[in-house]
C-alpha cells in the first residue's frame, strides 16, 4: 500500500453536500477533487440507481431486497469529454457491509468511513421506518455513494485491491474477499474489542481521542433526536393551517364581499401546509450528514480500542518475558526470588537431577528467545499502529471539522429558504385579506 504524503492539504468530497452560494441558494453535487494519487482522481464513481429484487436467501426463503448500481468511468475519459459508457455492476447492502468489515480488519489504524444506516432511525412521524420506503432507499443510495467516494479518496484505503474489485468485478468478488482470510481476523478482533482488559501505559492521546469519540457519539445522537422531535412539531404546525384553507373556502361560500378574499387566502393556507413536506425532506440531508459522524465516532473509537489491545498485548508479552527471565535466573543461580511450585518441591523433596535442570534451562532459553521475538514484534506492531493511527486521526479530525461546519452552513441555508417561503406565502395571504 502506497504511503501518502500526509502533509498535503487535500479535500474530501462529500457526495451530496450542497455548497452555499452568495445568494443562499445551493449548488449541487460538486465533489471536490484533491491532490495525491488516490483512486478518486483516476476514476469517476457513482451509485446511480436502486432497484428491488427478489430471490432466495441462505435458508431458501423468498425475500425482497434492494440492489444498487455502481457505475465507474476512467477519469481521463471524462476529462477528455469522451462520452464513454460507464462500467457498471449491481451490489446489495450486505456486500457493502462485507467490504467495510474487510477494511476495518485489514486497516485497524484507519478511521474507516461508515455505511449509511441499515434501518431508519431517528424518524419523525411522517417518515416510515420501512426499509422499502422509496425516500429511505434513495437516501441510502446517496449514503452508499458517499461511502465509496470517501474510501476512494482516502490516501491508504483507496489503494486496496479488494476495494478496486468491489467496484469493477461483479462475480466472485465475495470469494476473493473470503480468501484473504480476513474472517478469522474479524472474529478475533470482535472478541478482543469487546473484552475488558487493563492497560498500564496507554498513549494518553489515544485515551483522549477515545473519550472524545464517546462525546461525539453522545452529542450527535442527542442532536438527531431533538431535531426529529422539532421536525415532528413543525410538521404539525404547518399541517393544521391546512384547516384554515378548508374552513375559509366553506366560509367564503356564504359571504358576498368577503368571499373572494377568503377563498384565495384559503388557497395560500393550503400551499403553506403543503410546503412543509419538501422542507423536511431536505432537512433529512442535514440529518444524514450528522448521522455519518455519529457512525464515524464508532470507527474512531475502534481505532483507539485497537491501540489499547496492541498495547495490552505488548505489556503482556513484556510481562511474560520478564517472568521467564526471572525463572531462568533462579534456575541458573539456585536463588529463589519468587515463589514457584518447582521451587517448593525442590525444597521439600530435594533438588532435581542436573540433567533435568539442564533440559529445563534449555527450554526456558528457547521460550525466552521466542518471547523476545514476540516483544519485538509487538513493540513494532504497537508503534506502527500508534504512528499510522495518529496520522489518520488527525486527517479525520480536519475532515470532520470541515464537513460538519459545511453541514451547519447548509442547515442555515435551509432555514433561510424556509423563511423565504414563509414570507412569500403570508405576504400573499395578506394581499388576499386586504381584498376582503
Amino acid at each position, binding site marked *: 500500500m502506497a504511503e501518502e504524503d500526509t502533509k498535503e*492539504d*487535500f*479535500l474530501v468530497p462529500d457526495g451530496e453536500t450542497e455548497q*452555499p452560494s452568495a445568494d*443562499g441558494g445551493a449548488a449541487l453535487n460538486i465533489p*471536490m*477533487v*484533491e*491532490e495525491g494519487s488516490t483512486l478518486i482522481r483516476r476514476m469517476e464513481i457513482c451509485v446511480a440507481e436502486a432497484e428491488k429484487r427478489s430471490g432466495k436467501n441462505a435458508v431458501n426463503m423468498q425475500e425482497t431486497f434492494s440492489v444498487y448500481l455502481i457505475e465507474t468511468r476512467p477519469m481521463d475519459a471524462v476529462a477528455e469529454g469522451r462520452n464513454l459508457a460507464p462500467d457498471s455492476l449491481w451490489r446489495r447492502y450486505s456486500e457493502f457491509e462485507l467490504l467495510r468489515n474487510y477494511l476495518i480488519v485489514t486497516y485497524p489504524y484507519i478511521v474507516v468511513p461508515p455505511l449509511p444506516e441499515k434501518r431508519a432511525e431517528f424518524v419523525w412521524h411522517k417518515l416510515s421506518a420501512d426499509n422499502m420506503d422509496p425516500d429511505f432507499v434513495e437516501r441510502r443510495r446517496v449514503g452508499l455513494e458517499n461511502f465509496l467516494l470517501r474510501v476512494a479518496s482516502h490516501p491508504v484505503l483507496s489503494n486496496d485491491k479488494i476495494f478496486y474489485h468491489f467496484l469493477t468485478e461483479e462475480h466472485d468478488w465475495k470469494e476473493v474477499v473470503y480468501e484473504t482470510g480476513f474472517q478469522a481476523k474479524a472474529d478475533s478482533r470482535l472478541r478482543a474489542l469487546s473484552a475488558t482488559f487493563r492497560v498500564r501505559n496507554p498513549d494518553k492521546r489515544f485515551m483522549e481521542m477515545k473519550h*472524545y469519540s464517546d*462525546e*461525539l457519539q453522545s*452529542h*450527535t445522537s*442527542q*442532536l438527531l433526536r*431533538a*431535531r426529529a*422531535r*422539532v421536525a*415532528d*412539531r*413543525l410538521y*404539525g*404546525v404547518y399541517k*393544521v*393551517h391546512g*384547516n*384554515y384553507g378548508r*374552513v*375559509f373556502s*366553506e*366560509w367564503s361560500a*356564504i359571504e358576498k*364581499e*368577503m368571499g373572494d*378574499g377568503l377563498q384565495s*387566502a384559503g388557497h395560500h393556507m393550503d400551499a403553506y401546509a403543503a410546503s412543509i413536506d419538501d422542507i423536511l425532506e431536505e432537512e433529512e440531508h442535514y440529518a444524514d450528514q450528522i448521522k455519518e459522524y455519529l457512525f464515524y465516532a464508532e470507527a474512531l473509537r475502534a481505532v483507539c480500542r485497537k491501540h489499547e489491545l496492541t498495547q495490552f498485548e505488548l505489556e503482556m508479552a513484556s510481562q511474560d518475558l520478564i517472568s521467564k527471565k526471572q525463572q531462568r535466573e533462579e534456575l541458573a543461580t539456585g536463588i529463589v526470588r519468587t515463589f514457584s511450585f518447582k521451587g517448593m518441591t525442590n525444597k521439600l523433596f530435594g533438588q532435581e537431577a542436573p540433567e533435568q535442570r539442564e533440559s529445563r534451562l534449555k527450554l526456558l532459553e528457547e521460550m525466552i528467545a521466542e518471547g523476545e521475538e514476540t516483544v519485538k514484534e509487538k513493540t513494532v506492531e504497537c508503534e506502527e499502529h500508534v504512528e499510522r493511527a495518529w496520522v489518520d486521526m488527525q486527517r479525520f479530525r480536519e475532515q*470532520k*471539522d470541515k464537513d*460538519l*461546519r459545511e453541514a*451547519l*452552513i447548509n*442547515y*442555515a*441555508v435551509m*432555514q*433561510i429558504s424556509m*423563511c*423565504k417561503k*414563509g*414570507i412569500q406565502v*403570508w*405576504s400573499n*395571504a*395578506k394581499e388576499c*385579506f*386586504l381584498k*376582503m
Partner: protein
Amino acid sequence: MSGQTVPADFTEHMLDLDEDEDLEVFSKNTSLADESPMPNSPSSMVNQYRLEEDEEEQQQDASAKDIFITVDNPESHVTAIETFILYRVVTKTTRSEFDSSEYEVRRRYQDFLWLRGRLEENHPTLIVPPLPEKFVMKGMVERFNDDFIETRRKALHRFLNKISEHPILSFSQHFKVFLTAQELSSHKKQGPGFLSRMGETVKAMANSVRGVRTRPEEFTQMQEYTEDFSNKICSVDKVTQRIIKEQREYLDELRQYTPTYTQWAESEEDLAEPLKGVASCVERCSKETEEHIHHLSEVLLPALHEYVLCAETVKAVMRRRDNIQADYEAKNEALASRKVDQEALQEEVDGLADRVEQANNALKGDWSRWQDNMRTDLKSAFICTAEKNVEYYEKCLAVWESFLLSQRPEPEEQRDMEDAA
C-alpha cells in the same frame, strides 16, 4: 363548543346573577394596574385610543367621537364574604346628557352582566356586543391568573366601547348609569328586573317552540346566514386554538434543541464556534416563536372569539324577533275568533303590530351595521396576523443570514480554498 347559549334550565342562570363569578382568593399584584397615563382631553385621546388597541376599528370618524371609555386597573376587592376583581371605568365625554365631562367608577364583572341584560331587555332585536365568558374554556388559560384578568379586561373595554359606538345603545339610560353612578346596586334593584326578565325569557323559551307563520324572507335569509356564520366562525376559532397548541409544543421542542448544540460545542475546538452560532440562532428563533404565539393568543384569538359569542347573540336576537311576531300573530288570531272585548283586544293587537314593526326595523338597521363591523374586525385581525407571520419569518431569516455571514471565510482563507480546488 364555545358561545353564550341560553341554557334550558333557567333558574341556575338567574341565581348566578347574585353569585359572584369573580369570586377568587387571589392577591392581585397591583403593579399590574399600570395602564398608560390618561391624557386630559377627549381629543387627545384619539391617538391614545389607537395606540392602545392596535387593531380596534374606529367605526365613526375619530373627530366625531364624543365619548371615550377605558377599562383598566383590575384590583382585588376583599370583603368578609367574598373576593372579586374590580375594574376601573373612566369616561370622558362632551355629551350634554352627562352632567360632568369626566367620570371614574369601579365595576365588577357582575355589573357588566347587569348592563348587558338591561340593554337586551330594552332592545330585544338589537345586536348587543358580547361579554367575555364567565368561565374559561378548558385548555385556554387558567382561571384568574394575570393573563386571564388581562384578557377579560381587554374584552370588557371593548364591550363598553362597542356600546358607545352604537347609535342607539349608546344613549341608553342604563349605559349612562353604569358609567356614572358611584353606587350601582341601588339602580340594579329598580325598574323591571328579575321578574319581568324571567317572564320574558320563559315566554321566549315557550314560544320558540311555536313556529312563526310567515316570516319575511329577509329574516329567513338572515337566520340561515347566522347559522352558517356561527358554524364557520366556531371552526376558525377552533383551528386557531389548535394552531396555538401546536406552536406551543413546537416551542417546547425548540427549547430542548438549542442545548444539544451548546453541549456539543463544549467538546469541540474548531467546530465549537459554528456550533455555538447555530445554538444562538435556534434560541433567537425560539424567542420569535414565543412572541408570535403571544400575538395569536392575545390578538387573533380574542377577535375571533368575540364573533363566536356574537353569533350566538345574533341567533338569540333572531329568536326574539320571531317571538315578537308570534305574539302578535297569536293575539291577532284570537281577535278574529272572539266576539267580546274586540275593542280592547284590537288595541292590544295594534300595539303588538307596532312592536313587530319596530323590532323588524331595529334589526334590519342593526344587521347591516353588525355585518360591516364583523367584516372590518375580522379583516383587520387576519391582516394583522398575516403581517405578524411575515415579521416572524423576516426576523428568523435575519438571524440565520447573520450566522452565514459570520461563517464566510476570511479573504486569505478564500484564496487558499480556491487554489486547492
